[in-house]
């Protein structure tokens, strides 16, 4: 095996033996420019005490994981950087320490087209996982600087979240409610859980459960007890006294008479606890509205958006270790990831490539047998991002599920579906002339009225029926080209 090992020199003491290195670079850019084939990267010259070096190391991992070639490459440190070690594949300075694992990663990488898989962040992350050993799982890591508390280290870098965190004020905790909405997927945790929901990743053990603000989805919550009547946090414990003589029960202050306790009702001096009086309960009194209560209400105060929520309204996030599924592996091998939002159930949903082939085959049939007709429906959904940003991921998923459910009711079992873009879906209707397709199209289009999340955000579906003329048949596969042409005509409707 011909595994190349490159050193990235961050300027400190060099620990890796030069004998087994195939190159040494002083910057990530230089390394990326010189190499178009993935290799093992050793980050050397580390001084954990030097903040600049720590920052440089963090940046280097950011750059490598965001690059076209090295995003899945094995990255090793020559010296432990403490907590930061989990951002890389490990620590090692000798071939024996690095190669056994790293060469397997390289071996798998060589079988893939790294550049093809680099076009899409989802695919990059899946490729990263695919290249690791079987049983490798993404593990959530609690990062106190992250507003979402937990991040998945690999996803954190590959998805560009780390880069973003360096640029934003987020490690000062100065996040605003606007910040999380800058990217549609708010945190690496949310991203990987959406990949899991799509079936590319599978849960491999529950690690933790946290609660997030239902408004801004960040996790720095202050659980504060407050007055149940007015919500003010300024309240104090009031000791209650029960007079044995007349059974009067009131706050201690009502009984206070100089240095004695005297019952305001029967005027008896209460001298001895247990024989003259006792304390039936400890109550609270609000210093703002005067309300008396036994138990203060605990509210979750979001330190990011400062909105207070009832604890039962908080968004619960379960954090799992996540491993790649067979579906995820297939996507990596084919270099295609179908963005489907599970709008159609997987039995009828196929990859676009297969869809084109079926369309071409039906075209040949249509050419050969005149009674054999078929139609194509293109569905374009507009307004998904708006809904997602406004209502949050969870509600968005519900909406998509509902939409999918209704569409599936209209589609026959013999129909084949695919999606060619984030918001573009195709339905192939065999033995259906254009007239029949148009009817179905208008029915699906009407669904957008039935499915609307909240006031303000609205989903619009544009559906158009296409019929491929039989004259195209015989000139080889044409479906792919035609479909993208048709799709372009859909742009007008936006």
């Amino acid at each position, binding site marked *: 095996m011909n595994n190349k090992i490159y050193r990235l020199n961050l300027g400190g003491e060099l620990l890796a033996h030069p004998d087994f290195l195939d190159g040494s670079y002083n910057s990530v850019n230089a390394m990326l420019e010189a190499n178009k084939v993935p290799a093992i990267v050793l980050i050397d010259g580390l001084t954990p005490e030097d903040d600049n070096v720590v920052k440089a190391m963090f940046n280097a991992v950011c750059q490598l994981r965001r690059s076209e070639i090295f995003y899945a490459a094995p990255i090793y440190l020559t010296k432990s950087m403490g907590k930061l070690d989990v951002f890389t594949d490990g620590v090692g300075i000798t071939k024996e320490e690095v190669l056994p694992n790293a060469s397997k990663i390289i071996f798998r990488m060589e079988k893939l087209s790294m550049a093809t898989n680099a076009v899409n962040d989802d695919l990059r992350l899946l490729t990263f996982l695919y290249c690791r050993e079987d049983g490798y799982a993404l593990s959530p890591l609690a990062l106190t600087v992250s507003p979402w508390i937990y991040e998945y280290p690999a996803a954190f870098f590959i998805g560009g979240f780390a880069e973003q965190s360096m640029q934003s004020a987020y490690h000062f905790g100065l996040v605003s409610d606007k910040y999380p909405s800058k990217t549609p997927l708010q945190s690496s945790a949310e991203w990987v859980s959406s990949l899991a929901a799509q079936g590319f990743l599978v849960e491999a053990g529950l690690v933790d459960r946290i609660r997030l603000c239902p408004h801004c989805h960040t996790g720095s919550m202050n659980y504060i007890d407050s007055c149940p009547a007015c919500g003010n946090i300024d309240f104090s414990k009031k000791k209650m006294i029960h007079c044995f003589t007349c059974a009067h029960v009131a706050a201690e202050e009502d009984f206070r008479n100089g240095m004695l*306790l005297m019952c305001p009702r029967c005027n008896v001096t209460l001298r*001895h*606890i247990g024989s003259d009086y006792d304390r039936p309960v400890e109550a609270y009194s609000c210093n703002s509205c005067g309300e008396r209560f036994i138990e203060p209400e605990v509210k979750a105060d979001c330190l990011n958006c400062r909105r207070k929520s009832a604890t039962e309204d908080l968004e619960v996030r379960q954090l799992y270790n996540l491993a790649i599924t067979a579906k995820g592996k297939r996507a990596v091998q084919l270099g295609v990831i179908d963005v489907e939002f599970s709008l159609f159930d997987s039995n009828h949903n196929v990859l676009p490539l297969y869809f084109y082939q079926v369309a071409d085959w039906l075209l040949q049939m249509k050419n050969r047998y005149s009674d054999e007709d078929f139609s194509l429906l293109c569905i374009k959904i507009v307004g998904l991002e708006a809904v997602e940003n406004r209502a949050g991921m969870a509600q968005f998923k519900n909406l998509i599920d509902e939409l999918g459910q209704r569409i599936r009711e209209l589609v026959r079992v013999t129909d084949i579906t695919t999606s060619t873009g984030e918001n573009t879906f195709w339905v192939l209707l065999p033995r259906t002339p254009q007239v029949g397709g148009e009817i179905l199209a208008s029915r699906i289009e009407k669904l957008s009225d039935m499915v609307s999340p909240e006031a303000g955000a609205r989903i619009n579906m544009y559906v158009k029926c296409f019929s491929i003329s039989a004259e195209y048949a015989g000139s080889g596969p044409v479906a792919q080209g035609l479909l993208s042409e048709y799709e372009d005509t859909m742009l007008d409707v936006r």
Partner: protein
Amino acid sequence: MNSLIYSIVNNLYNLTIAQLINGDVIAAAVFLMPYVLFFEIPWTLFIFIGLIKYKLNRLREGERRPYFPAVSFLITCYNEGRDIEKTVISLTEQLYPGKIQLLLVIDGASINVETMRAAKTMEGWVNGHSNRSMLILPKWQRSGVVSSSNLGLNFATGKIIIKVDGDTSFDNNMVERATRHFEDDSVVAVSGCLRVRNANETLCAAFQAIEYFLAIHSSKTALSEFNMVNNISGAFGIFRREVLDLVEGWDAGTAEDLDMTMRIKNYFAQSQKKFRIVFDPEAICFTDVPDSFAKFFKQRIRWEGDYPFILFKHYHTINPRLMGWGNFFGILINIFTHIFIPAMVFVYTIWLLFEYRIDFVIALLAAVYLFYFFLLTVIYLISVVLLSERKESDLSRLYLLPLMPFFQFAAKINSLVAILWELVGAGHKDSSMAPWWVLRKNKF
């Protein structure tokens, strides 16, 4: 029966007038002896004057000034078990705004598991209160109450040290009353008022409740007005921290309370400083007393027997020039009531029975009884009116007053037995306050 009573009354009349006129000195002395010996009238007058003086001062006392020194409690526990909860609760519940530290010294903690467990369960609750803290000091090996107090002193942070027993409980203004006197620099210690918690449980306890009220509540209030308080109870003593440091804590041996009082008195007298020990009848501590006569007499044998032991220990300092006349008189009165009177009463009664006819003796004792009963009732009623903070409860025991002289007489005979036992058998070493292996090392 009627003739016997007639004979008694007749004898009484004949004796008083006739014997005096006839100049029969011995016979007159026989009759007058109880009056002279018991010096009860001047004593009652003295108490009465003291109470009036106290009441006037108390009415003029005015508002509490913002002086709230930190207070540390030395709570000496042994096998009280869950009874210590009452102590801890009533101390935590004090209305005092200053800091209160509770030091629970548990003697023989390895065997007194129940006490230890009860203490542990209270710890969090106490520490949850502002200005209240609790520390448990387990002494795994039993070593006596004196070492418990001295151990606790090492951990005490307060300016005022209050030593209490583990089975007592307190009125909620106790600390407030007790501490206010220390604003006066000459006050070295405050003696607190002991009351009987189980007064309504048995006849014996009810008698003791009356006795405590007269001998402590009422008498010491009066004595305090003349700066003649001569003992600070071991179950409940309040000290200025600096003073305990000066006398270097409690001394080994029994009756450490009386010993401590004597040493404080001596120390201050020697250094020619003015000092006072105040008794405050409103700083009230409740304690359980023996509920049967057998237990009561046993307890008194121990207490009274300790008295000559302390006198013996301090004999070289009992001197009016060393300790001042007031205190010297206090000691004399104590010797009189503790040693001389019990002996006198005993010898006198025996002598009467041998020397005179039975109807004459009964007549004489009846007169003594009536006299006693009268004084007792007067002083009890005056004390209830002027002092008692629980008038209803104290008045509920009025019906027992006719029996009180008998109770007191029995107690005095018992004292005498105790003193004889002390002189013969060194009874103070037979104390339950410390194990024998500790006591045998003591010098006295």
